[in-house]
């Protein structure tokens, strides 16, 4: 019993720590060119997890619009945005974080959706249901997923 209580307190403490370090979408500090210097979680992302977010239709689905030779095992790459190969050489980590979180801060009018944004939409919906968005509309990707994608993109360097 005592151990369980201690465990619960430890769990609560760790949850509080994570929340304190995580930047909510409305508080993201975009620089002059749309870059974001600080990690949204306060920690580096996991590039392996990021590769999954980039590839998975139900997560980031980045390949819907972006092709990448590095993702040749993933079927059906789109032709809408620039190829992802070399992104880690073309952009800094802060720039990639800004582009993933809200590319419109860097490229006005870009077609690219903002993956870490929760307000300012026209007729926001509840994911893909067609219903109105809930009051507490979550961003498309979590802070952790954004950081994971950034970490993965940083691995896509030119030879």
């Amino acid at each position, binding site marked *: 019993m005592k151990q369980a209580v201690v465990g619960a307190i430890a769990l609560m403490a760790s949850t509080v720590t994570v929340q304190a370090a995580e930047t909510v979408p409305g508080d993201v500090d975009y620089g002059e060119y749309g870059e974001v210097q600080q990690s949204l979680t306060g920690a580096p992302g996991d590039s392996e997890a990021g590769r999954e977010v980039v590839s998975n239709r139900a997560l980031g689905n980045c390949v819907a619009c972006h092709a990448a030779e590095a993702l040749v095992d993933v079927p059906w790459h789109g*032709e809408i945005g620039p190829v992802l190969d070399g992104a880690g050489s073309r952009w800094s980590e802060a720039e990639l974080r800004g582009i993933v979180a809200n590319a419109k801060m860097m490229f006005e009018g870009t077609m690219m959706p903002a993956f870490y944004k929760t307000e300012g939409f026209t*007729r926001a919906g509840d994911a893909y249901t067609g219903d109105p968005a809930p009051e507490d509309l979550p961003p498309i990707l979590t802070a952790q997923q954004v950081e994971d994608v950034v970490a993965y993109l940083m691995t896509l360097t030119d030879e």
Partner: protein
Amino acid sequence: MGISLRGTLGLASAVAALTLGTGTAIADEEAELVVNEEIEMVVRAEAPDHLADTLDTIYSGWVFRSDETQALQADDFDNPGFVFVDVAMDAWNAADGAAGKSCADCHNDPMDSMVGVRAVYPKWNDEAGELRTLEMQINACRTGQMEAEEWKYDGSDMVNMTALISVPSRGLPVNVAYDGPAQEYWEMGKELYYTRTGQLELACANCHEDHYGDMIRADHLSQGQINGFPVYRLKNAKLNSAHARFKGCIRDTRAHTYKPGSAEFVALELYVATRGNGLSVEAPSVRN
């Protein structure tokens, strides 16, 4: 923004499709559509005047589909949409409502009486003082002439009937008017076309004006023309109205959609229809 496939990926896919004969999402974009070896469809046309600054050429969605899907529309015996046209023909001949009338009692054979109708809808109705889609006109007939219940706007009875009424207009150019009292609806529809909706913040124009011909994952983006509606979709094996398709597209922007039959979609249909003025009426067309 051209229609030709661009980039190495598109080329690689095209080569793969040719080599393997898979014919997945890659279409023969130069192909011509002749239905039943008789009806010559205009699948490419000079853009209408109101689009002159935006597009040179308008393309039927048929152009963007795979060889196999294209072939299904070339013969009515292969076109699964005609199963539903036959169902609608039975409804056409059946009396319904308190007046005891069928469509046929006033309009006889739809293959004669309905020639040219699909091509000009949505259309302003002076008497009613409203812009009417074909669905609205059918329901006006049902309640006014037949004293029957309205059909659900995008229910199967309705979409099948719009397909039947479209058949005798196949091959005629879409010629939807947007002047006079229709103009304010047209402007509203245009506004909607360029409004970026939902959490993905995508407008019709992002995909269908700026990126037609490109792949978005496994989808080959078309110009979003509605000259082929209602369409038989392989995806759901039934006829689909333009409004149902609009709803699906807007839903996929992670948006709160509008309803089929809503004033917004009526206006959007008018505007999108006029973007296709000059293409042939194809309905019931076949798409993926």
